[in-house]
């Protein structure tokens, strides 16, 4: 898989969540995503950016456009150095929340993506990565 473009965005305030959404939208438009695909990947990114801020204590979102043969996609990776997630399987279930949210963040963004990857170590932080291909 070839990474075409990569941009990093810090997530420290709720305004930064808006910036991440806009950056993901720009990439999806650039790659020629249709409106539904754009909306799905932007919404998934918004959920994960909020997780990074609320539960991870802030972090970084890396927005990338990728090519795999003739397939084009947008990948976003969220890294934080927060408390981490002890039970990832439980955290992926709808309705699970350790804060004031509705607990749709992880499960919902997984459903809105074609590829989903999560890695977390209690006390060290969390990395979540989502990818959506164009027109799949």
């Amino acid at each position, binding site marked *: 898989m070839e990474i075409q473009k990569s941009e990093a965005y810090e997530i420290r305030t709720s305004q930064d*969540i*808006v910036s991440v*959404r806009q950056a993901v939208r720009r990439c999806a438009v650039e790659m020629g995503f249709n409106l539904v695909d754009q*909306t799905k990947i932007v*919404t998934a990114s918004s*959920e994960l950016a909020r997780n990074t801020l609320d539960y991870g204590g802030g972090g970084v979102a890396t927005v990338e456009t990728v090519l795999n043969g003739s397939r084009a996609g947008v990948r976003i990776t969220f890294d934080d150095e927060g408390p981490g997630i002890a039970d990832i399987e439980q955290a992926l279930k709808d309705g699970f929340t350790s804060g004031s949210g*509705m607990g749709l*963040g992880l499960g919902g963004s997984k459903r809105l993506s074609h590829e989903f990857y999560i890695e977390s170590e209690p006390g060290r932080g969390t990395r979540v990565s989502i990818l959506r291909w164009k027109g799949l």
Partner: protein
Amino acid sequence: MERIPILKMGDFLLVTIQVDMHDRLALALQDDLTEQIVKWRAHGVLIDISALEMVDSFIGRMLSNIANMARLLDAQTVVVGMQPSVAITLVELGLPMKGIRTALDVEKGMRTLRSYIEANGDGQGGDGNPEI
């Protein structure tokens, strides 16, 4: 601080959300709207989200909260103009949006509010509180 404007139309309030809302702006809207409902004794609230390209669980929760708060203040809420791509995404996200009434545009939303208020026998065109 930046604010989302609230327009008074008869005994309805109209909010048109045209910016990509950050969280503080969304919370300020909740506060402003509940204040305005009481100030104008409004019986209906229309929230036009046709310019919103995305609704995530935070914004969805805010819309639910507004509808619930408004109901406690004797006002009904209709969310109008949701884009099809937003509706598709919300369902896949798993956001219930329970208790939220919707209409395709502002005009239909007004009709929904009118018929609801008429059916419940108060409000229309005036102050529905009998104790005043």
